[in-house]
C-alpha cells in the first residue's frame, strides 16, 4: 500500500494542549534493516521532540517501555518491527487501563500499589546465621519463572479483571510476586500472606483467560502462579466462599 514507506499511527496526548487524545499518522522510509519498535520511536522523536515514552535499558530487562503494539502489549525494545507490522502499518498506544500522563506514558501508581500490597519482600524473623541461609537447588528452582519479573505491567494491563478492579484485584504481576515469596523456602509468613489474599477480589477475580501469559515479554506464567496460590488458599481455608458477583 505504501511501497517502501512505513506508516506509524501513534497515540498522542499532551494534557497541556489537547482536550482529547488522538492518533497521529507518521509516514517514514522503511528502515533498511529490521529495527526494534524502540528504535522506531527514537527515529520519530528525532523529527518530533514532543513525543514522550519511557525507556532505559533498551534490552528487555528494566521494564520501562511496555506499550500496546498493534493491539498487543509488549516491550518496545525487544519487539522487532517485522514481528508486528501489518500491511506496512504499526499502531502504538499506551498500556491499556491505566490513566495516561502523556503520549505513551501511563500513570502506574495503581500497579505499584498492588505490588506493595503483597509485601514483596522476604519475611523471616528468625535470627539470621553468620553466613547465608541454606537453600537446596531444588528449593531454589521453585523461584525460577517467578523472580524474573521486570514489573513492566504488560500482563496486568492486558487483564480485564485488572481494568475493572485495579484497586481490589491484585493483578497478574503482583500475584506472580506474591507466589514468588510463598514459594521461597526461606519465607516464613505463608499463613499471613494467604490470609491477606483470601478475600473475593485479590486473587479470585482471575478467571484464567491467560492474557497475561500471552503477553509476558519474559515468557513467565502468572496464570500458573495464580493457580498455585488458589490451591494453597483452598488447602489453607476450606470454608472460603467464592462469589463471582461484584
Amino acid at each position, binding site marked *: 500500500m505504501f511501497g517502501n514507506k512505513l506508516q506509524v499511527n501513534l497515540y498522542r496526548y499532551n494534557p497541556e494542549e489537547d482536550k482529547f487524545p488522538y492518533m497521529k499518522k507518521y509516514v517514514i522510509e522503511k528502515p533498511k534493516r529490521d529495527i526494534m519498535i524502540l528504535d522506531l520511536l527514537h527515529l520519530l522523536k528525532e523529527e518530533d521532540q514532543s513525543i514522550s515514552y519511557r525507556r532505559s535499558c533498551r534490552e528487555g530487562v528494566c*521494564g520501562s517501555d511496555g506499550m500496546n503494539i498493534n493491539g498487543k502489549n509488549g516491550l518496545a525494545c525487544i519487539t522487532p518491527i517485522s514481528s508486528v507490522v501489518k500491511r506496512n502499518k504499526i499502531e502504538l498506544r499506551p498500556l491499556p487501563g491505566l490513566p495516561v500522563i502523556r503520549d505513551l506514558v501511563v500513570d502506574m501508581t495503581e500497579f505499584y500499589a498492588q505490588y506493595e500490597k503483597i*509485601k514483596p519482600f522476604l519475611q523471616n524473623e528468625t535470627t539470621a546465621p553468620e553466613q547465608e541461609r541454606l537453600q537446596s537447588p531444588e528449593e531454589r528452582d521453585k523461584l525460577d519463572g517467578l523472580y524474573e519479573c521486570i514489573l513492566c505491567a504488560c500482563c496486568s494491563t492486558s487483564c480485564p479483571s485488572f481494568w475493572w478492579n485495579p484497586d481490589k484485584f491484585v493483578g497478574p504481576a503482583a500475584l506472580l510476586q506474591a507466589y514468588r515469596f510463598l514459594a521461597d523456602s526461606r519465607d516464613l509468613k505463608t499463613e499471613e500472606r494467604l490470609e491477606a489474599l483470601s478475600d473475593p477480589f485479590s486473587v479470585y477475580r482471575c478467571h484464567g483467560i491467560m492474557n497475561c501469559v500471552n503477553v509476558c515479554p519474559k515468557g513467565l506464567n502468572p496464570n500458573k502462579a495464580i493457580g498455585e496460590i488458589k490451591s494453597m488458599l483452598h488447602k489453607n481455608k476450606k470454608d472460603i466462599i467464592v462469589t463471582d458477583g461484584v
Partner: protein
Amino acid sequence: MNNIFTNNIKKIEFDALIVGGGGSGMRASLELAKSGLKTAVVSKVFPTRSHTVSAQGGITCAIASADPNDDWRWHMYDTVKGADFIGDQDAIEYLCSEGPKAVFELEHMGLPFSRFENGRIYQRPFGGQSKDFGKGGQAARTCAAADRTGHALLHTLYQNNVKEGTNFLNEWFAVDLVKNSKDQVTGVIAFSIENGEVAYLKAQATVLATGGAGRIYASTTNALINTGDGLAMALRAGFPAQDMEMWQFHPTGIYGAGSLVTEGCRGEGGFLINKDGERFMERYAPNVKDLAGRDVVARSMVLEILEGRGCGENNDHIYLKLDHLGAEVLNSKLPGICELSRTFAHVDPVYEPIPVVPTCHYMMGGTPTNISGQAFSRINDQDYLIPGLFSAGEAACVSVHGANRLGGNSLLDLVVFGRATGKHIQSELKSGGGVESATKSDIDNSLERLNKLNESSNGFDPADVKKELQECMQNYFGVFRRGEFMQKGLDQLNELKEKVDNLHLKDKSDAFNTSRVEAIELQNLFEVAESTAVSAFKRTESRGAHARDDYPDRDDENWLCHTIYDPITKEVSKRGVNFEPNKVEAFPPKVRTY
C-alpha cells in the same frame, strides 16, 4: 516552566538525600531508612529501571562457598593487580574484607542466589580471579543468580526499601547541586518529570549515586539513562573528578547492538575465536586465556581485528563460542544470554557463536571519595572533604577499580560502599554534623541552567549534538588512544562546547517532557566527556584500560598515581595511590601478566 525563581519553588527538607535509585543508592537509603533519619531517594526512573538491573554474571566475593579455603586477601590481591596497581589498597581491603558481610545480608534480604548442592550460594569463575595470590590457579568467586544477578539484586534492594518505608521521589530529575558560600552542599534542584514542578530538595547529606556515563560513547553496553548526571553536577559545582581516562571496554558486547554478554559465559567455559576458528587468547594470555583481565582481552580482540582476522563480512568482530557447553548448561546457567542473543544477534548460542566486539562498559573514574563515601576536593595537593557531599557506586571513585575493574566487582562495590556511606551519614548526623543553609542567591545559581534551557528560542538540536559528541569520543578515546588523535578529539570537543551551552529546547511543556530531560542529560554527558578527554591526553603511559600506542608501556616512575581533573581550570594534577592497607602488607607494583 518558564522563569523559575527561588521564591516560587517548593522546598522539601530531608536529613539525607540520595540521588539515584540503583544498587548503591538503594543500599545507602536502606541503611539510612532503618536508622530513622528522614531519607529520600530521588530517581529519574522508577528504581527497578536503574542500570544495576542489567548486571548479569554476578557479585565477586570471597564467601568461601565454591572453595571453603577461599580468602578475601586473595580477592584483594586479584583486585589490586586487576587495577594495574592504581587502586587504593585501603579501599580494596575494605571492599574485599567487608564484602562477605554485605553479600550475606543480601541473601538474608531474599536475593534469590543460585545454589550448590550443599545449599550454599553458587559461585562461578570470572576473569582475573586466582587462588593463593596468583599462585593457586583459577578461582570461582563470583556469586550468581543465574545470569540475572543485577536484576535480582536491584529488585531485592527495592523490596527491602519498601519494607523499611524509604521515601522515593520517582521520576524526579536532579538538575544541579545547591552549595552555600562555604562550599558546603545543601541539596539539589530537581523537577518532577511527570508535571514539571521544580523543587529545592534540601538535605544535610547529599549522596550522588547516579551510576556511570557510558553514553558518552556511540557504542556502549550502558542503558540510555547512563548519562553521568551526578558526576556532572559535581563538576559544574567546581568539584574534581578522579581517573576519568579509565574507561572499561567490555570484551563481549553484542556486535551492532551493544548489549552485554556476561563474562560468566567464558567463566562457564565459553571462549573467543577469530575467523580461522582459532582460540586466539591462548597466544595473548597463555595461562588463563579467555579469563584474563577485561582490558587485556578487549585489546587482544581489537588486535585480531586490526590484523585482518576478524569475523563476518567486514572482518570487524569476533565470535564467542558457547555451543560446546550444551543446551542444558546454557539454559540453566546462562538463560538471559540465550534470550539476548536470539533477540539482538539473531543467533542461538546453543548452535552458533555470538558475534561480539569490545564495547564501552564501565567508568572506573568518578567523584573522588574516601571509604565512608565522603567526597573530597583538592586544596594545595591535600584532600579536602566537601561538607554535605557523598558519592557511591560507579559515580564515585573510591578507588577500588583503579585502571581496570574486575568482573563482578562492581556489584560488590555498590553494596559495600552504599552501605558504608549510609552508616557514615547516620553516625555523622546523629552526632550533630550537618551543613549550614544556602541563601536565595545560592539557590538561584543552581536554577540558572534550567532557566536558560527553558528560555531558549533558538540554538542547536540536542539529538544532533549528542551524536557528534558520541562519535567524537568513540573515534578518539576508544580502546587504543594516541596523542595526535586525542588532540583532534579535544579540538572537536571545544567546538561542541559552544553547541552544548546553546541547545534549543523546542518543547517547553511540563507534562512528562522527556526532551527537557534529554537536553540536560546531554550537558551532563559533555562534562564527563571533557574530563575524560583531558585526563586521557594527559596520562602519557599505558596502564589498565588506558592504552596509548604512542606510549605503549606502563610508567611507574611518573604515573603510579591517580589523575585529578579540575573542572574550573581544566587542568589535571596527580594524587598519590594508597599503599597502606590496615590488615595486610601492601601489594607492591609488579609486571601484570595473565
